[in-house]
């Protein structure tokens, strides 16, 4: 379809472009600019060049935030995707009961992050929480789920998986329902076992769903903030100071706008890199198929 006037498409794009410009590009450029200053919002900014980046690198804060976020994301993406897939496979059947269970599992996804975090704080309380009591009743050791620096991050990852597994389950269920029954039946007639049918028919056909769930979970997990803010405040010993929380802490707790902006820029580049990588993989695959 050709536009009546060559300028028409641009007019139509204008509202979205304006929104993006005001709420995305301008803040990003402003962050890039302020990252070159030492500034606390109250006193005049002092130009320091790339010093904020240097301090963040030298103090190890960037590396630490990156590794913490990455460890968290790997666990969350792998955990929520595999759990979602298993649940989808188990519950992809007609009937009221499976539908009820699907609904129950998905309900966690729509509850607010803060409520989920508060609920789990209560469950995980080392002395009086349900989880600790259960472990103790089974004769296990007392575990300080949120107070032990070696465990806290994975506890948060577990809570996140619990919350978002329903999301990947729903997407995988949709993906499973798109798999033509005839193909599965044909494979069954050819004598393929259920494992072989999954491996050679279902799984390859689920690939677009998997890629989509993977990308969105990855982005979601990279942006984790609420559970950290409510459950651990980045501690103990900074073991749960993920990227977004580190930015929050710099700007709101330490009153360092410049350093926070530098972290924003690095975080943006990181996400941009991830997205580009993902896009190129997708396009490569699409080309291969064509």
């Amino acid at each position, binding site marked *: 379809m050709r536009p009546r006037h060559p300028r028409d498409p641009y007019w139509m794009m204008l509202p979205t472009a304006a929104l993006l410009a005001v709420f995305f590009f301008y803040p990003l450029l402003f962050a890039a600019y302020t990252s070159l200053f030492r500034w*606390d*919002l*109250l006193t005049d900014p002092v130009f320091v060049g790339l010093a904020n980046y240097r301090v963040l690198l030298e103090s190890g804060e960037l590396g630490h935030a990156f590794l913490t976020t990455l460890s968290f994301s790997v666990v969350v993406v792998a955990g929520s995707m595999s759990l979602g897939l298993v649940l989808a496979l188990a519950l992809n059947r007609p009937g009221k009961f499976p539908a009820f269970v699907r609904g129950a599992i998905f309900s966690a996804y729509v509850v607010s992050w803060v409520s989920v975090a508060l609920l789990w704080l209560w469950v995980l309380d080392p002395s009086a929480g349900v989880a600790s009591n259960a472990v*103790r009743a089974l004769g296990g050791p007392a575990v300080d789920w949120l107070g*032990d*620096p070696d465990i806290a991050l994975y506890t948060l990852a577990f809570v996140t998986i619990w919350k978002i597994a329903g999301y990947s389950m729903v997407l995988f269920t949709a993906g499973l329902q798109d798999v033509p029954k005839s193909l599965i039946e044909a494979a069954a007639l050819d004598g393929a076992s259920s494992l072989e049918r999954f491996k050679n028919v279902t799984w390859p056909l689920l690939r677009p769903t998997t890629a989509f769930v993977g990308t969105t979970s990855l982005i979601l997990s990279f942006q984790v903030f609420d559970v950290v803010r409510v459950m651990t405040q980045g501690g103990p*010993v900074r073991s749960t100071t993920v990227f977004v929380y580190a930015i929050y802490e710099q700007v*709101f707790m330490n*009153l360092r706008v410049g350093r926070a902006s530098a972290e924003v820029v690095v975080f943006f580049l990181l996400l941009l890199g991830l997205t580009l990588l993902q896009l190129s993989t997708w396009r490569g695959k699409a080309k291969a198929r064509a």
Partner: protein
Amino acid sequence: MGCEASDPGRGRSRASLWFTYGGRNREVLEKLVARFNTSQSEHYIEAVYQGDYYEGLAKLRTAIFAKAAPTFSHVVGEVIPYLARAGVLEPMDDYPGYDDFDLVPELGQEKSWVGGDAQPLVALPFNRSTPIAYFNGDLLQREGISPPRTWDELRAVARRLTRSTPPARFGFGCPISWWFWVALVGQAGGQVVEADGRLSLGGAAGVEALRFWQTLVREDRTMRPPPGRDYNAWEQTNQDFLAGRTAMIWTSTAFLKYLEDNAPFRVLAAPLPAHRRHAVPTGGTHWVILKDAPPEQKASAWAFLRFMHEDEQAIFWATSTGYMPVTRRAIRWLEREGYYAKHPNDRVAVDQLSVAQPWPWSTDLFRIDREIVQPRLEAAVLSGSDAQTLMDQARVEAARSE
């Protein structure tokens, strides 16, 4: 008509107050604000809750930048020098009636900071506290134990009160927080900033303070490190105490009435023990008026602050919360009327003022606390890293910090 009914401040000069605590203390403050609003018809105070101290400070600073700040607020002492240097606080030296306040010097700007009296008056004491020790009084009586007076006694008492069989109980609890570390440094004979302004972080005393915690948590296993940071850790400490999971805790005098009201046992308060000497920092917040507020709003805020420093309000605030009365007149009145004889717990913090140590007037101290010291306190206690190495690193980093 409906508008008039829902707007009791109509026709008066209004000032907005941002405050930063919830629970019981919030209720008491709101009562006092309501009392002020009905006591006269010229001024009207709108009090708005803004989360905990740090959240409130973050909002305040952002609001100042966005030109949407309230008329006045209250902020932790550590950031006052920083805000004063940024030029956002209203000097109150020339406001009428200040001389009549009869402030307790250790709680006012004069002695809360080294050289506080040499600075323009920008801070008035509001909810002022010191750390004190709280005990499960019933348990203490049953075991025939009296509150420890030294670190060694504390260690022994904590050991005696710890129980590993269910229901398990820790002998001692205390948030792993800069404020309590500063108390320990003082007790070990050091100070965070030396008289010449050099940031020593207590030198050997700083290390000793940290090692004391490490011993209790990692060696004796008589102290429970609470999870979370900032005020979550404080809240957890209170909850553990109330539920009988900790027998003795160190926390702010601010929680005195809350703990007394909610504990299913008798709460006993005592001064912190000494090591080489007795020492405590003061804490809590100070009133500040924002410089950019319109003059009539500042006048209303000042009228409210004068009201708060009158005997009746100063006494009501202190006896309803556990914070210290900020005027000498109020303390004398409570003494004279036999309040302290009847409520000895309320006296502990006031008596401790004789060993209170002033903070340095440092614009960077809150950053040194948050960025450099606090993470290392957690590292030492929770991961068991070497206290000496950590404090050496902290000093190097603090010297580099800008």
